[in-house]
């Protein structure tokens, strides 16, 4: 079919899957599961194949698919992928099948599967949309399935948690919608028609400096709630703790990335000047989030809540890297979005597996699991180290790039942020110690180790965690061109220049040094020349004077 691009298919396959699931009788649970999984796997395969078809040398949007949708407003069905969104799409494509296989809803499989597929479509649509309104629609659409998943399949306080989640996000979006419309209408000056195409809007850059700042803040409001940034993060621990395992995996793995992705894609490209001006504010908030999240995580008695707070801290790193406004920081941020999705998704799966066996998430209730579940302990260790950021695993690469990238422009923020890495080690290792070490007694001694299915579910995540830790280059190669282009855009429009060290590392510093040296020498030469001429001039004058005196 002509016109049906692969991206449109990626977004529509889960929708079709959900529709098919809706038509299957409730009692045929096996068929429902099979259909749901097939749709999710299809999307996953398509997403992975995108990586290979993706042109790593191009910084442009690729596989663009466009169709007019609401002409009255210049809204179109516009999808495209670049280095920044590519791996988020892949992450979504991988995590959904894993969440579907790895967890059991226990009741009403039909509605559960349908909601999961709708959620997947919403996430993919948000990452792929290049039309502001389309992005907003998908962004909002993700709320609904998540609301029903938390509220329908969650734990004790699920209704409270789901409502809080929904209303917080909706509150943020309210600002974004108004900001978005202001941007679009103010950009439609003269002969320029109304458009929601972000490429065109970024190009026009029509807002006055002051207006742009307000609109940027409106967008940031929506994304800050989603990320979540301190102090609008309070929905997150509740939502994560009360959500069923798959809900937490997707929430942490994919949904939170909508916030950081939004900041990168819309915050930076549409409002470069405002982003440069307000970067210190966001960096500060990010650092507060890193420390605050880590401290809270240390205090938690509930294992799931601990992981939830660790997300607040990790997402703080991503925002830190984003608003460092350097190529390294941003690349690290984008990479870290994927890393966090993998490691925290895996952590939530593991906590879910423990809960399935022990029916508790209380750290105090769990003890000595290393003896009764050795394989689980190994897997948990690897995932935990990935989350801490141990060299050799994926978390290290992202955090390291972020911290370097931040250090060259914002030294002190980077210094405080680094403390977060140490705290991460503290709360995770301490939790591990309490849960896994020692001699198990009572129920803890009788636990069965991971089943084959659970191992199969964790295997791809572990492979990716190790692979990205050892050889992240192919991923960075695809991320970098787009990030470089974005930073150039910010530099051109924001009246800002990133230090050379942030572009080429040590070589950049040397180059800069040499450049400065050359400049100095040039200046010196000129100075000498000038003096020489001055001297000559004086000499001439004296000579003339002498002549006239004669």
């Amino acid at each position, binding site marked *: 079919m002509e016109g049906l691009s692969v991206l449109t298919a990626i977004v529509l396959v889960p929708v079709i899957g959900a529709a098919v699931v809706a038509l299957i009788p409730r009692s045929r649970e096996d068929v429902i599961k099979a259909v749901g999984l097939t749709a999710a796997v299809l999307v996953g395969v398509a997403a992975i194949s995108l990586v290979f078809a993706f042109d790593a040398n191009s910084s442009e949007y690729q596989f663009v698919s466009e169709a007019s949708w609401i002409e009255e407003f210049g809204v179109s069905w516009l999808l495209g992928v670049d280095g920044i969104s590519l791996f988020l799409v892949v992450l979504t494509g991988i995590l959904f099948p894993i969440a579907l296989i790895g967890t059991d809803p226990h009741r009403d499989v039909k509605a559960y599967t349908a909601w999961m597929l709708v959620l997947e479509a919403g996430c993919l649509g948000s990452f792929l949309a290049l039309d502001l309104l389309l992005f907003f629609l998908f962004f909002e*659409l993700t709320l609904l399935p998540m609301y029903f998943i938390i509220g329908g399949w969650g734990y004790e306080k699920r209704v409270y948690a789901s409502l809080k989640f929904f209303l917080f996000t909706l509150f943020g979006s309210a600002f974004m919608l*108004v900001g978005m419309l202001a941007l679009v209408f103010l950009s439609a000056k003269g002969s320029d028609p109304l458009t929601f195409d972000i490429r065109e809007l970024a190009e026009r850059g029509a807002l006055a400096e002051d207006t742009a700042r307000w609109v940027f803040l409106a967008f940031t409001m929506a994304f800050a709630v989603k990320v979540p940034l301190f102090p609008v993060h309070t929905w997150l621990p509740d939502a994560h703790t009360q959500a069923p395992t798959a809900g937490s995996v997707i929430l942490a793995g994919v949904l939170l990335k909508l916030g950081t992705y939004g900041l990168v894609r819309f915050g930076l490209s549409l409002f470069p000047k405002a982003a440069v001006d307000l970067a210190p504010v966001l960096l500060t908030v990010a650092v507060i989030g890193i420390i605050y999240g880590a401290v809270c995580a240390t205090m938690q008695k509930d294992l799931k809540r601990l992981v939830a707070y660790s997300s607040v801290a990790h997402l703080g790193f991503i925002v830190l890297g984003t608003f460092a406004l350097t190529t390294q920081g941003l690349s690290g941020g984008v990479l870290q979005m994927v890393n966090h999705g993998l490691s925290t998704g895996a952590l939530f799966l593991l906590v879910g597996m423990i809960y399935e066996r022990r029916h508790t998430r209380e750290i105090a209730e769990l003890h000595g699991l290393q003896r009764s579940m050795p394989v689980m302990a190994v897997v948990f260790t690897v995932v935990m180290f990935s989350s801490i950021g141990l060299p050799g695993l994926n978390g290290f690469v992202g955090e390291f790039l972020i911290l370097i990238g931040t250090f060259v422009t914002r030294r002190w923020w980077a210094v405080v942020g680094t403390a977060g890495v140490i705290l991460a080690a503290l709360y995770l290792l301490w939790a591990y110690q309490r849960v896994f070490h020692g001699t198990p007694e009572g129920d803890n001694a009788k636990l069965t180790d991971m089943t084959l299915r659970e191992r199969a579910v964790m295997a791809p995540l572990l492979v990716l965690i190790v692979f990205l830790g050892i050889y992240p280059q192919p991923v960075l190669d695809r991320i970098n061109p787009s990030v470089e282009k974005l930073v150039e855009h910010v530099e051109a429009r924001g009246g800002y220049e990133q230090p050379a060290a942030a572009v080429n590392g040590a070589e950049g510093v040397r180059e800069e040094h040499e450049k400065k040296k050359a400049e100095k020498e040039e200046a010196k030469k000129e100075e000498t020349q000038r003096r020489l001429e001055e001297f000559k001039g004086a000499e001439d004058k004296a000579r003339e004077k002498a002549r006239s005196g004669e």
Partner: protein
Amino acid sequence: MSGLLVAQSGQPQGLPPLELPNVEYSAMAPHLILIGGALVLLVWVAMMRRRAPWVWAAFTVVVGLASLVASWLMWLEVDRNGPRSAVADSILVDGYSIFFMVLVSAIVVLAALMGEAYLRREDVRGPEFYVLMLLSASGAMFMASANDLVITFLGLEILSIALYVLAGLDNRRMESREAAIKYFVLGAFSSAVFLYGVALVYGATGSTNLGEITGYLQSTVTPSNGVLLAGVALLLVGFGFKVAAVPFHAWTPDVYQGAPSPVTGFMAAGAKAAGFAGLLRVFFSTFDTLKLDWQPIVWVLAVATLLVGSVLAIVQEDIKRVLAYSSISHAGFVLIGLQAANDKGLAGSLYYLLTYTFMVLGSFTVVTLVGRKGDARHDLNAYRGLSARRPALALAFTVLLLAQAGIPFTTGFLAKFYVISAAVEGRSYSLALIGMLSSVVAAFFYLRITVLMYMSTDEEQAEESRHETLAIPRSMAVVLAVSVAITVAFGLLPAPVIDFARDATTLL
């Protein structure tokens, strides 16, 4: 009489010859079809001995469809030849009026289907419901097509008087009678205020004809005209009552709660549309030149309406009161479109009214069903565990409620988007933001109902209610299917309806 005769005979008596206007009946075809239908129904019932309620319902549906077709034919004609005025310039045949004719006809069809099952269940005999509804709907059409404030007033009265009776239709229920009296007293009061406004405007401009008033205002510079502004303000109050804008909303919760549920549905859809039809026409076209004067007032009205509607809905325990307050907050959104006072604002308001109509009719269908015999079970707890008993019904209600909350890919979102974008285009950023934030508050009570339907764990209650059957009559199922289908389908492919609303305003 003798004077008339003298005048006709042309003898010099100092009286000019009376010119009877040329009545172009074709310009009022849909109105007349509805009125004719009502009269035929009355006569028919008086003549026939056999009483067959479903035949009356079917007849009403046919009348509604006929008027829909007539409206559509008029649309095509206007599309070809452009708008015109008729009956001595007192009726306008333009895209705007036809838009409302189409809308009102659709409301008649759906409300008749809704009413049929209700009347059968409640054992209310007689065709009054259909007759009054048809008459009321014709009043709504007159309000939309009026080009003269007197005609607007006539339309308002035809609409309202029939509604007063409809509200008290189920006179065995105390609440229904109470609602009728309340609605009547406050409605009559607001009509008087409206009429006073008409009088003042006439005093200031020398005409009640909208075209002539427009001409006067455009040609005359009025630095400060207290009488005119007072008249405009009173008109706004009169319309404000009809559309339930705060602070003229006090009747809404009580009347919505007390009136029979299908009547409430008709009221929420039809009366609101009619009130706005008059309001938007008068303010957008006639008093456009005064917009710097009325925009701030409408701003205040809109903000109050949005906030009061959405905040008070949260604390209600009765579904009909929740929907009443929610309808108030929706009126606030339409007022956002009015406040913007630009093309997008008008088109957005029309789009909002059109899409809201189907959401609210569908919602009240569910309310009627769950209310069961006696139309009394409207406590929110009646919805506890509905998804387990009637999954399809719960799903339909969820879609309609979430659409009202403004969830993407439904018409409800686009409606909000349309009026908010009009406000932003008109640089009313604060109003746009207040509107969006109030919709967040509103989302809370819509979600609260879905929580009850889907997430309530009260096993005992569920067990108890499992024994009761909740049959869905076919006519109600049709209404629900149509409302949900329109809400979702045009949310996904919005172009036809958006174009319809826009064309309606360009043909003004």
